[in-house]
């Protein structure tokens, strides 16, 4: 049975959490043994997982700067996870001190931690909501208070859409969110894919199996499938590409081979 909207999810730290695993990959200690165990198991199949996460973070950083350079200084970061160094608001505010950022996650621990970290940081807010219910996000007090929907917003979906199964209607969710945003808004996303992973798909699927034990199974999609998220918006140069190829700061040859796993792209709403 589906959980009613008003009933909070149980806090079960005996189940691995993808946001705490992500923190582990990034060298943080905001995690528990169960998270580390799952992450280590996933790394048995893909030892370069941390490099994939790092590439995600680096892309996000470049994309946030791109947004700020294009006068988009409102950010809606869905699937923000455990705050770690190089957060969106840090990057955004380095470019424009007036930038506003709303972080959204459905993991109650990630939300509680975000609230603790962002306590007293003006212009930022945290929402406990699920990407599967875009209306909950759009109508939340924090979003209404902090974001001006008459002006463009950068919608960040970094490493989150691949946790939505097709039955969760991810395309409809993205469309519904974009629909609420003003022209000129940006869709910034990265997505896991078997394409580009420097090991064979069979081996990579071991990682997928590990994620099955979390509450957020991993759904690999092809470039074509990921491209469909940009329906209705225009992708900006260089389109949907492996993460290190998106407007790089440094030569791609310096990158770890794992960094090319999955895709990144930015679209602009006309």
């Amino acid at each position: 049975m589906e959980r009613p909207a008003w009933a909070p999810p149980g806090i079960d730290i005996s189940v691995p959490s993808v946001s705490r695993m992500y923190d582990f990959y990034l060298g943080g200690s905001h995690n528990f043994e169960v998270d580390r165990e799952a992450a280590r198991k996933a790394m048995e199949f893909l030892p370069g997982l941390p490099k994939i996460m790092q590439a995600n973070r680096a892309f996000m950083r470049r994309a946030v700067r791109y947004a700020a350079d294009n006068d988009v200084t409102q950010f809606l970061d869905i699937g923000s996870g455990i705050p770690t160094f190089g957060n969106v608001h840090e990057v955004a505010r380095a470019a424009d001190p007036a930038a506003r950022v709303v972080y959204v996650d459905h993991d109650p621990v990630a939300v509680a931690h975000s609230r603790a970290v962002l306590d007293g940081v003006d212009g930022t807010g945290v929402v406990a909501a699920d990407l599967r219910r875009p209306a909950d996000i759009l109508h939340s007090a924090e979003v209404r208070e902090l974001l001006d929907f008459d002006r463009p917003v950068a919608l960040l979906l970094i490493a989150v859409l691949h946790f939505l199964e097709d039955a969760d209607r991810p395309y409809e969710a993205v469309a519904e969110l974009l629909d609420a945003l003003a022209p000129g808004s940006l869709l910034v996303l990265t997505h896991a894919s078997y394409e580009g992973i420097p090991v064979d798909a069979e081996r990579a699927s071991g990682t997928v199996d590990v994620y099955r034990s979390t509450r957020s199974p991993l759904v690999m999609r092809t470039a074509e499938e990921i491209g469909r998220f940009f329906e209705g918006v225009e992708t900006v140069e260089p389109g949907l590409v492996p993460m290190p190829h998106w407007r790089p700061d440094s030569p791609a040859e310096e990158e770890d081979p794992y960094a090319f796993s999955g895709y990144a792209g930015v679209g602009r709403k006309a």
Partner: protein
Amino acid sequence: MKVPSQPSGSAGETDGPEDRLRRFVTIWGRAIFPVTATSLTRAEFEGHLLPLARLLCDALLARPFDTAPAQRAGAGLVDAHCTDPDALGRSLGVVDSYLVLYCGRDDGLGGEDLRARCARLQHAMATGYAQALRERTRAEQESIARSALAARSAAEIALHATESRFRAVFDGAAIGIGIADLDGRVLEVNNTLTRMFGGVEGHVRGSNISEWVHPEDGPHVWRLYDELVRGEREQYRVEKPYYRGDGTVLWTNLTVSLLRDAEGEPQYQLALMEDVTERRLLHLRLRYEATHDALTGLPNRTLFFERLEKAVTAGPNGEKGRFGLCYLDLDGFKAINDSLGHSVGDRLLVEVADRLQSCATGPGEMVARLGGDEFVALTTRTDGERDVAGLADRILAALSGPIGIDGRELTVRGSLGVVEGPAGERTPAEVLRSADITMYRAKSAGGNRFELADPEADARAITRHGLTTALPTALERGEFFIEYQPLVHLDDGSVHGAEALVRWSHPQHGVLGPDRFIPLAEDTGLIVPLGRWVLQEAVRQARSWQLENPRTGGAGPLRVNVNLSPTQLHHPRLVADTVDVLERAGLDPGALCLEVTESALIGADEDLLKPLRQLAEMGVDIALDDFGTGYSNLANLRRLPVSVLKLDRSFTRGMQQHPVDPVDLKIVEGIVSLAHSLELAVTVEGVETAAQAARLREIGCDTAQGWYYARPGAPDRIHSLVLADAV
């Protein structure tokens, strides 16, 4: 690690201490960047390393020598998010190999000294790094644990709120809520449910659901229950009665759902009960009222049709029972009502109802009142006509005893139509119609009897019935029209006038002749308005002929013959209506001839003849139609106000033969002679040949009609015939 080649030259412009420091940073950054998770670019990352390198460099040369800055450099690595211990190992390797090389200056310290210092700085750096990493790990562990705790307490608060809300819903719900385990033990009930069961909580909580059997439980109720507790069903919904503590019955709409635990194992059953006792009672009462006759208390038409529907429908597996139906209509009930009043009539009906009910008391039998004095007895306990005939006999017998009302002994008789047959062949409406028709047969056979249904009699009656019911609307819709058959003077063949013959253009059956519907119109009384319409039309038509052909001389104006039925003859407004019609049309009475059948005038007394006499005195011709078919009381002719005899076509038929039947000839001669002596004109019908016409002319008949001259047709045909005459 390999030592890069010694930088060329010494203390050149491009090789100052700052440049050397930057080169050291570049080497350091390249060594540890791959083991960091930073999202910074290499250049940005090196920007973080530069102050650390400066600390190390300064400490290497400082006097007095102090290792504390190296500790801070180690901690700085952690601050730059180099949390992978490999970053320390690689950093120490870089310091060991390059610090002295890039930062050492020959200002008093010997190479040995520098190497010793560098070693000690590495120790301090490792210490600083380890301390910082330990602090950071502790802090992060603590903060995530605190967040988990915060999230959990938020969830608990929410859960508590949820539970409070649930409790409020549970306690305040208008429906009864109960939770039981899978063995049926009731664990928890809300106040509403307790109240529904009579207010004693102990009666409900702690008892077992299996004790709550009620005799009126449908067979499926407990089957559904078993399926649910076995986990084969998630939910069911039934209407179920319970005994309350005081023995009264509680009726509920019951919804039971299976509650499973997190692993999906069945755990509890949740019952939601709505008290529908009142509603049910009301429903039953309304249902009773809707299905019973208020006067007699018998089932009414509605309930009867429900049962009849069931009785005449084959079972779900095609099994065919039989059914029997007795349709009773009291004889002469209207007279009782009219003479003794409705109150007596009603009491009579109540007594009849009681007697009827005593005749059909078994299961599968029912008596119902359809309305007025019509009752039915329906039975499914029959093996054939004999059984239902027996029931009809019992009914007649039950009615035979006199009924005492207000000291008056009333005798009741009834006519019964009996239908018996197998289910699955006829619709309820067909069965009831058959019973109705059959009842009328019993009634027309004199009443106080029953008749058995007969398909052929039904078929006849059904057509008759259909036409009868269609008659009134047919007049409204203008489905009748009139054809005219010319009447011709036999002596010169000129057109004398025409007989108006009414036709019915029936939407289904086509054009019907008067023999098909005039008797029905007679029975229903519709003959009066229909007859008046025919008279109006014919008179109007005659007048319009006259206006179109103002004939003068011997032929005189065109005339029209219109038939009068017996009922019209008796109608009190016959004379007034006729005068009115003539005056409105402006037709001379002498141009109208009313035809009356001989049989209608048999035994006619002066009262009946008076209107005819009045009409005759006004100048209207009265013709005696179909003369020779009835009793043909010649003596009677004298006192009738008749001016024309119409000889029936049976006489002329005899003259079609060759040779002509001499006896027929003599008779016609005699009648014509007699008529003429009484100053009656003679018209013959059915003239079909020239020979017939010649012979009738010889005999002395005055006028004739028949196919020889013209068939009945539209009014303009008469017009053209008249024109032909004139030529």
